[in-house]
């Protein structure tokens, strides 16, 4: 291990001898699921790529965007190609949790830092040798869950029913919520699963209803968040319904209509931007991003796009630091980039403030989420 400082010394000496690389170019691979079942997540991410910084100091940054069609096998193929053919310095993507899980081993083997805009905390937790190369630009489930469970405790919820998606996202939520509620003396009385493709969750919601919990948490992402809630309401459930940040989509309001009024969820401040105090440093970043996105695409971005935008901000900060140590396109540069990313402190981005540590590669704290409710068909800050 002693050769590493020596190596970087040599590189530094070389860099000093030949002067700073004036026309240095960094190549960033971007893999999104802009087609296929995860397209709802991937399309705003792909549309965000043109907004990423193309010039950092005197380093130009080239983005190579690829689509994996939501297929994990495809993600691996695309990532391998980007590494071997394009010699990328860092990777942003993929969009889906299973897709990201699949590529971790390959980016770690090649020593390429990966900024994953995915929901599941499993890409960075528990920290292992390969996952050292992965940074996650979304709030970890436990930060969101903590906010929700604390709110439940405040509202004197004693029993909770959970309807979760039968996939890694739902699975992780069941685990996280189970631990947190136990700490607050809230009892989980029913845990039911459903599938994204289900046309009916009547049976699951009946099971939850028959346990008559004070509140119900729906742990799902995207469009499927709606069906369990509307079913519960149709069957006459009167308690409070909680949703995860997976529901933080315009689709949730559009599909849910009146039946999702009063839902409580915790998510990024982007949803309730006008209500956020100007003193919140993320407000300006988020407004700038939304304005730029609207100008380019003619529509408002979903928070998934901001996850990619934040990845760009993280790289913007880390690339100049790494460039002082090594020349872009080399293994040393990528290692330095990883180190620089890991040392990111108090970086203000659209969703909150990032402070990475070797143990925490997501880096959000309580500034990364707001408690939000649905009122009159729109998002409102919960007061």
């Amino acid at each position, binding site marked *: 291990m002693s050769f590493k400082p020596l190596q970087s010394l040599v590189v530094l000496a070389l860099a000093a001898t030949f002067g700073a690389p004036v026309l240095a170019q960094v190549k960033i691979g971007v893999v999104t699921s802009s*087609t*296929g*079942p995860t*397209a*709802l997540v991937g*399309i705003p991410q792909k549309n965000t790529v043109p907004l990423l910084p193309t010039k950092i100091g005197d380093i130009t940054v080239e983005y190579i965007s690829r689509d994996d069609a939501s297929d994990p096998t495809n993600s691996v193929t695309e990532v391998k190609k980007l590494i071997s053919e394009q010699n990328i310095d860092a990777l942003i993507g993929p969009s889906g949790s299973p897709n990201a899980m699949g590529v971790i081993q390959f980016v770690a083997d090649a020593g390429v830092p990966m900024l994953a805009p995915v929901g599941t905390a499993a890409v960075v937790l528990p920290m292992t040798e390969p996952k050292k190369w992965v940074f996650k630009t979304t709030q970890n489930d436990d930060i969101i869950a903590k906010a929700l469970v604390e709110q439940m405790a405040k509202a004197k919820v004693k029993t909770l029913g959970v309807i979760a998606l*039968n996939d890694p996202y739902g699975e992780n939520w069941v685990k996280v919520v189970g631990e947190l509620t136990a700490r607050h003396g809230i009892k989980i009385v029913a845990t*039911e*699963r*459903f*599938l994204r*493709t*289900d*046309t*009916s*969750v*009547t*049976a*699951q919601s*009946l*099971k939850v209803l*028959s346990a008559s919990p004070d509140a119900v948490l729906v742990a799902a992402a995207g*469009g*499927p968040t*709606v*069906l369990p809630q509307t079913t519960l309401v*149709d*069957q*006459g459930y009167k308690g409070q319904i909680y949703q995860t940040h997976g529901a933080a989509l315009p*689709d949730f309001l*559009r*599909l849910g209509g009146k039946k999702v009024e009063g839902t409580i969820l915790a998510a990024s401040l982007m949803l309730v931007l006008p209500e956020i105090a100007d003193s919140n440093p993320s407000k300006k970043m988020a407004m700038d991003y939304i304005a730029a996105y609207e100008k380019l695409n003619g529509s408002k971005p979903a928070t998934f796009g901001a996850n990619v935008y934040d990845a760009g901000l993280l790289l913007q900060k880390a690339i100049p630091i790494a460039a002082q140590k090594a020349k872009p396109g080399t293994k040393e540069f990528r290692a330095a980039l990883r180190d620089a990313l890991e040392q990111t402190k108090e970086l203000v981005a659209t969703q909150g403030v990032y402070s990475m540590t070797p143990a925490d590669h997501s880096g959000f704290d309580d500034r990364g989420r707001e408690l939000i409710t649905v009122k009159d068909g729109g998002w409102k800050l919960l007061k």
Partner: protein
Amino acid sequence: MNLQIAVLLGQDGITNGAIYALLALSIVLVFTVTRVLLIPQGEFVAYGALTMAAIQAGQPSAVVWLLVGLCLGSAAIDVAQHLLRSERAVPLRWLFAGKLVYPAVMVLLMYRLPLATLAMPLQIAFTLALLVPLGPLLYRLVYQPIADAPALVLLIVSIALHVSMVGVGLLVFGPGGASTTPLVDAVLEIGGVRIKAQTLCVIGVALLLIGALYLLFGRTLYGKALRAAAMNRMGARLMGISPVFAGKATFFLAALIGAMSGVLIAPMTTIYYDSGFIISLKGFVGSIIGGLVSYPLAAAGAVIVGLIEAFSAFWASTYKEIIVFTLIIPVLLWLSLTSKHVEDEE
């Protein structure tokens, strides 16, 4: 579990089962007549639901351009065959003119009608008018040129068509899901049990369609011709029943049933561009129970699938899908042990 929950689960299971039954029937119908396993059946369901949702939202749906494209493609082939004067050439007459006029009328209606304010039956009729012709057109363009190919080739082509139709669905309808307003928005209370009027509506329409099919195949000449073609293709051909006609007619019915199922199911759930596959797969399990030949068994099987789905979701929601699809194994075992082996007719 008390009686009330059992009734609610039964109601849910039968509602879904009714949709699966319709799809199972059309899968059996298409398979017996053309030997095509209609995997894209589910796409008609998704298209139906999403087109209906677009119309109710008052947005002209780009699906009309798919119709235009297929009509023009089909017309172009007619012209080419006419020019080459091959033996299959159709004289360019009314049908050909229809292929050009019909899509033009549909485009005009799509962009001129006040879609959102139309009466619900008209919205449904317009959805069907847009989607049902896709059935025969797809048969004309995709299956008719390879109608004599081995069943395996037809199956592979079906999978290809399914994948392309899902892709086109994403292009036309976008990745977001949609649901529509119920046909009738009311809840009936019978003996303390809440029954949604929409549920009765689904079951009613399903029974109506099944009854209509029964009459069609039992009482009309065209229906009997289709049955003949299903029983013995060569024999039917010798009796002057055109296999091209039989193919187009079955695809017409399949598209009608599929699109109608989509319209029926759309108010109860959220449909995405790729939701159709899993729905038709459950219809397929039903048709397997019917051995891919028997209509009543297929329909009954599909209703059973719906019921098992509802009850297993209640008892063990984690394993629901596994339970439903594992059902196919004992059925296949039973079928392969009891049925006589028939040589593939090639």
